């Protein structure tokens, strides 16, 4: 990791996601990657307790019904115990909550609700607020005021509707189905390391037809995932291969590989053992 990347990672807001639904976890994690927010998922109250003891979080994003209890009571208990270790901001997922529960959540420190089914828009808005808030407070400014201003913006009013945004890609390529988008992203990330290894193997043996086939598939997938610049790099590799130019294809692959690893660092970790074997 470069020093700049290291600094960015250290200053990213940290979110504790208290949610046992794996699909929602994936969705939140997917949006977090694009919003440059770190998410730690806790599938139970017990796991959340342990996470809060182990580290600092800027936001708690909580479902209310967990396998080992009710988050409302848990939050109230923590608040009574002076809220030690609890993030300053708490957002609860809600699904048709009554006024009584909302009041109880208010007294437990919850300051915002995200409706279920959860939308990418809402999560993005929540993370934008968090980033603005966290950045300002780390510079010594008035974080909550900025956050309140950001909150006042209606979901969907953001200008970041380019193809590169998760919402743009979801609408354009996944029929607006953010769960399908998240599932595809997860399978893409799982398959990325072996695919990268195959490209490198074929480049080393000069099998440019095989490189073309793999990179061509990558290009389509990257377009669908909103990574237009990476898709363009894949397209350049295809072009070099079509012209029989192995050396420029290799150089362009180095660029694409760096871009893929910057976007999906886990692929590098997964690829390392294969490269050592």
């Amino acid at each position: 990791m470069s020093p700049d990347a290291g600094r960015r990672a250290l200053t990213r807001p940290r979110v504790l996601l208290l949610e046992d639904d794996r699909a929602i976890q994936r969705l939140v994690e997917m949006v977090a990657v694009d919003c440059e927010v770190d998410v730690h998922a806790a599938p139970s109250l017990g796991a959340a307790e342990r996470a809060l003891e182990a580290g600092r979080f800027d936001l708690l994003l909580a479902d209310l019904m967990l396998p080992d209890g009710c988050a409302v009571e848990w939050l109230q208990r923590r608040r009574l115990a002076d809220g030690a270790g609890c993030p300053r901001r708490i957002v609860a997922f809600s699904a048709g909550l009554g006024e009584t529960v909302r009041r109880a959540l208010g007294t437990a420190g919850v300051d915002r609700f995200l409706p279920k089914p959860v939308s990418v828009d809402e999560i993005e808005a929540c993370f934008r607020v968090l980033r603005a808030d966290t950045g300002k407070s780390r510079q010594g400014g008035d974080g909550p005021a900025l956050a309140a201003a950001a909150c006042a913006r209606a979901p969907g009013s953001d200008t970041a509707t380019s193809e590169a945004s998760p919402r743009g890609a979801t609408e354009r390529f996944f029929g607006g189905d953010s769960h399908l988008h998240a599932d595809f992203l997860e399978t893409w990330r799982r398959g990325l390391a072996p695919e990268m290894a195959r490209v490198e193997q074929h480049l080393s043996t000069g099998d440019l037809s095989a490189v073309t086939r793999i990179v061509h598939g990558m290009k389509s997938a990257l377009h669908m995932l909103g990574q237009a610049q990476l898709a363009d790099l894949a397209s350049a590799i295809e072009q070099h291969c079509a012209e029989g130019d192995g050396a420029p294809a290799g150089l362009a692959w180095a660029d694409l590989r760096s871009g893929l690893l910057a976007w999906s660092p886990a692929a590098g970790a997964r690829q390392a053992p294969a490269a050592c074997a």
Partner: protein
Amino acid sequence: MALHRPTADAIAPSQWRGPRTRSSGQAPRLLLIEDSSHFQSLIALLVKRELPQAELHVAEDGISGLAMTGRLDPDVLMVDLLLPGIDGAALITRLRSHEQFRRLRLVMVTGLSAAERKPYEFALQQVPVVHKTRLVEDLPPLLKSLVAERELVS
């Protein structure tokens, strides 16, 4: 939906079964020939969601895809154009040269643009083509109509 991975047991055309006798209640059988694990996964997700009763079989290259077509006699065959072994166009041409596969319902799945598909046009006559970036919107209704057509025939 049942997902079946291939066994690498390529068989010669002479060993191909003839067309199955299908009963109308039988689960539709789909075969996907696609080397990209990403698009295998996406299509599996779509089939699971939109045609949960279907069996989906997957082959990762043209040669084993050809063999599996003979062995499975699928109701619908989805073929990628750029494949290792033999490409999708050659595969379709080969299948059509055999009487028992003349009426096979085919879908071409590709990331190639219309201009890039020109060299393969000889094989794509009357074959619906779904661009990979349009899979989510276009593939499910197409599969449903092809499966419904099969039901009507049987």
